[in-house]
C-alpha cells in the first residue's frame, strides 16, 4: 500500500469517494487520495461550497480535461478553511495528493465515529484499496 495509501490517516469511501482525513488541532484535514488523483487525471477545476456540510452530501466538484465528479463531505460539520492554493491550482493534488489538503472541517461531535464509510484500521483499508485496484485492472 505504502505511498499509494499511507496509513497515518483514514479514508472516506461513500459513493466511490477517495478522500483522506487527518485530525489536526481539533479539526479534520481532508484531501483526495492518490488513487483518485490518478483516476481523474490532471485536475483543472475544483469548487467548494463553504459553510455547513452534511456527511455524505456534496460539498463541491472536481474536474479534469476528461472527467468530472462530486466531492462529498466525509462528515457533518462546518468547513473552517479552504486551501486556496489548491483551489487555484488543483494540479497540486496530482503532484502531491497527501500534502495537498483541500478543506478542514470542524466535525459535529461524534460525526466521524458514526460514519460507516470511514474505514477503521489498517486491515480494512488494505482490503478496500486492493478491491479498488482490482476494479480498474
Amino acid at each position, binding site marked *: 500500500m505504502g505511498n499509494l495509501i499511507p496509513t497515518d490517516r483514514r479514508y472516506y469511501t461513500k459513493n466511490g469517494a477517495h478522500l483522506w482525513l487527518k485530525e489536526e488541532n481539533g479539526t479534520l484535514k481532508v484531501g483526495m487520495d492518490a488513487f483518485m488523483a490518478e483516476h*481523474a487525471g*490532471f485536475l483543472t477545476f475544483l469548487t467548494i461550497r463553504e459553510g455547513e456540510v452534511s456527511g455524505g452530501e456534496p460539498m463541491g466538484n472536481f474536474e*479534469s480535461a*476528461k*472527467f*468530472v465528479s462530486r466531492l462529498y463531505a466525509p462528515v457533518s460539520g462546518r468547513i473552517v478553511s479552504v486551501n486556496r492554493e489548491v483551489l487555484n491550482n488543483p494540479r497540486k493534488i496530482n503532484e502531491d495528493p497527501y500534502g495537498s489538503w483541500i478543506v478542514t472541517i470542524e466535525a459535529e461531535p461524534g460525526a466521524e465515529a458514526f460514519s460507516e464509510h470511514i474505514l477503521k484500521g489498517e486491515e480494512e483499508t488494505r482490503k478496500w484499496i486492493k478491491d479498488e485496484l482490482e476494479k480498474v485492472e
Partner: protein
Amino acid sequence: MSEKESPEYVQISTAAAMTLKFFPGQFNRGEKLRALNLLVTYGEGCRASCGYCGLSRTRGAVEDTFIRVDWPIVPLDETIRRANEHGEHVKRVCVSMITHPKAFDDMLTIMRAFRDGTDLLISGLIGPTLIRSEEKVEMMKEAGADMVGIAVDAATPELFDKFRGGGVGGPHKWEHYWRVVDWSARILGRKKPGVHLIVGLGETEREMVSTIQRADDLGAITHLFSFFPEAGSSMERWSQPSYGQYRRVQLARYLINEELGRYEDMEFNEKDQLVDFRVDVEEVIDDGEAFMTSGCAGHEGRVACNRPYGNERPSRPIRNYAFLPEPSDIEMIREQLFDYSGRYEEKLNEDEG
C-alpha cells in the same frame, strides 16, 4: 528552437496521452478513445494565423493548449510501442499536418511508421495549402492512409477568408481547399475524405447545412466540431454556439451523409434556422447516432475518431457523444433540438446559479 521535432517526435492529444499512459486519467462515463490524434511538431510552430485556432502563430496565450486541452510532445517510437501495448480499444491513428514546410514529408514518415509498426487504420488530417497536386494525395495513400480529413472549418467563403485567409494575413484559400476535397474523393474513393466544419464561427444554420451538402455531393462525409474559445486567440471572448443550433446541424449532417435527406428539401425560418427536415426524424432522434461524434471509421464501419469530451468540459452537457446516447440523454437532446431562442442555455445558467 525546440529539439523535439517531427518526425522523431509528435504532439498527441490529452485523450491519446491518457490512453497510452503518458498522462494519468480516465474518461467520464467510462468511455474509451478509439482513435489517436497526433500532430507534427516544430519549435517555430504553425505558420498560419487562423483566428480561432490554438496553434495560430499570432496566439498570445500563456497556455499551450489546442482544442481545449494539453498536447504533450512525445517520441514517435515510444508512441508506437505504447499503441501496441495499451491500445486495445484503438482502431485508427490520425496524423495531422500544420502549416509548415516540413509537415507533409514528416506526416508521410509518421504514417509509414504506424503502417509498418501497428495494425491501426491511418488517416491524415491534411493542410491543403501545402498540397499542390493530386500526386500528394497518391503519396498519402501509398504511405498507408485510407482516409483524409480536410479542415475547411468555416462554412462560407467570406468566413473562411475572414478567419483563415486575407482577414488574418493567413495563407489559406477557400477554393483550393475544396479542390483538394475533390482530388481526395477521386483518389481515395467516395466517403473517404472527411470535411471538418466548426459550428459557431458566425454562419447561419442554412449556410452550414448547405456546405455539408456541398461536401457530400463532392463525395466527402462531414465531421462536425463546436467552436470553443481558445484562451489567447483572437476569438477568446466568443461564445460557443447554442445547443439548439448545434443539434439541428448535427441532425441535418446525419440525414445528408446517410442519404436520408437533402439540403434543398429542408426548410428554414427567417433567421435561417432549420425548422423542418422534411423527413420523419422521430426514429432518427430516438436512435441517437446522429448526435454522436462524426469522424473517420474503424474496420467495422463504426466511427473510430470519437474524441470524448473534445468540445466541452466534462461538466457541461455533451455536444458530440462518444457513445450512443442513453434515454436520459435523448430527452435532453430533444429539449435542445427544438429550442430556437436560447432558453436551454438560460436554464443551464440558472441551474449553475
